[in-house]
């Protein structure tokens, strides 16, 4: 029994090396000089330096702020649209609600490429290409169904007595949402917002299609750096490490809530 326990641990450690290893090595490479990064055999021992970060940071800030701006605004909009909808759907219980919530998630089945071309044509006509608004609109549309889906599960998991008690006390609908539902589903709400951030931050198809130099977000900048600076692997690693920092940290903090929100209603 103990023996099999250790074997299982060993397999897990190997899995960590295979799965997390590439990311770890990317971060390690970002602290090397270009010469060390290209050394063969790969250098495990080297004197770490921040010199490549200096170069990487120069081209980092502009796309970083584009991403923060577009992702931030779109996440707030998705929450403003999605949370009241989820509250309404779970508050006025009816059999049809389950299918409405399900309909929201089926809109995610629509391949982005099926709407990309007309959106491109529309944004071109409205002169929104290479402005933040095109992507804010797209990210909001993309994430609102996820907000409805997840918040519906979290609100439904609240003990039913609480809402009834508030009703008896004469709390109005908006008060209920603001003063009871939102505070009680705090952690679920945070996880939902974080998932929106991750999805929007990492989105690439629409980002590369609707923006160019002026408003390119980080995901596009990474791809662009790869073609223009493919020769500078250490600096590219530094740039990439900076680019993935936000979604990775956010993801680490929310992994548990995330699974609960995505699956709880669907497996009952």
């Amino acid at each position, binding site marked *: 029994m103990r023996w099999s326990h250790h074997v*299982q641990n060993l*397999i*897990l450690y190997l*899995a*960590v090396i295979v*799965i*997390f290893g*590439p*990311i770890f*090595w*990317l971060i390690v*490479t970002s602290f090397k000089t270009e010469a060390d990064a290209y050394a*063969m*055999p790969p250098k495990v021992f080297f004197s770490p330096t921040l010199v490549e970060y200096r170069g990487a940071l120069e081209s980092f800030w502009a796309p970083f702020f584009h991403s923060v701006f577009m992702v931030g605004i779109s996440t707030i909009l998705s929450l403003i649209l999605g949370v009241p909808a989820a509250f309404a759907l779970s508050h006025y219980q009816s059999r049809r609600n389950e299918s409405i919530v399900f309909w*929201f998630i089926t*809109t*995610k*089945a*629509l*391949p*982005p*490429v*099926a*709407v*990309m*071309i*007309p*959106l491109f*044509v*529309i944004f071109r006509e409205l002169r929104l290409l290479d402005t933040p608004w095109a992507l804010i609109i797209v990210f909001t*549309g993309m994430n*609102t169904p996820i907000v409805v889906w997840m918040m519906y599960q979290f609100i439904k998991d609240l003990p039913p007595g609480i809402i009834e008690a508030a009703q008896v006390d004469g709390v109005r609908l908006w008060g209920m949402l603001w003063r009871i539902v939102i505070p009680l589903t705090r952690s679920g709400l945070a996880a939902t917002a974080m998932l929106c951030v991750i999805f929007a931050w*990492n989105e*690439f*198809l629409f980002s590369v*299609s609707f923006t160019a130099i002026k408003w390119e977000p*980080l*995901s*596009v900048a*990474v*791809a662009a750096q*790869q073609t223009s600076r*493919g020769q500078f*692997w250490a600096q*590219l690693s530094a740039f*990439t490490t900076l*680019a*993935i920092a936000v*979604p*990775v940290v956010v*993801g*680490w903090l929310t*992994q548990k809530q*995330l*699974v*609960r929100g*995505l*699956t709880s209603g*669907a*497996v009952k």
Partner: protein
Amino acid sequence: MGIITQVPFLLTIYLSTQSWTLIRPDLGRNFVGFRNYAEQVFSGGFGIILVQTLILSFVALALCCLIGLGLALLLNRDFRGKGLIQTLLVTPFFIMPTVTGLIWKNELFNPSFGLITYFARLLGVEHFDPMAQHSLIMIATMVAWEWEPLFMLVLLAGLQAINEEEIEAAQLDGCSRLGIFRHIELPHLMPYYRVVILLGSLFILQIFGEIYVSTAGGPGNSSMNLPYLVYQTGLVGWQVGAASAIGVATLIITLVILMVLLRTMNAVAREE
């Protein structure tokens, strides 16, 4: 919401009946009926890319299902450092698709300085360049690497929801570890598999950034999938009508695949 997703789709259908090349305004925009479909969708090239899309998605999904289950079973025990290990294993899920492509193309498999290239050379493999030689399978493994954490987390949640008394009772009755897995854990995991396979295939059928950065669909068209074909036709070739026709076809195919998946899984669930 509806405006964002539904109206543009109707526009896609309309545009798919037009001949419109954005960089040739002199040609104008003309109604051509179903010619775009005849030329773009019912052609050999489209068929090959459709098959590639299916292979890519199937291989990636199968890898995710297997690895996700294995890791979930390994994590569903008590041991020191469990939280840290789980966190490290989840990380690829939060990485940008473009970064995934970059890691595969530059860091691991670059023909001159890649990490795995180095080990392959130690083992005496000459001309090691899988990104060019087996591009489609390489894309599938990179997608599996990125999506395996979701499968692991969901299946782990499923395992943890099993009533421990049920397993203890089975153990008392002399049920082997394999028996417990076959008769208790696997049936219990079915609804979780259903959710995660549906979610996963939604996203995996639409892979784009990984391909864009690592192989750009090449060499030739050998690692291209349908989303990349739409992008290539519409925003590189600027053939709006043709790209729309491919987009409509992609939508129909995606819906059919999801429907078949759902049917199959419901049938399997009923047998259990």
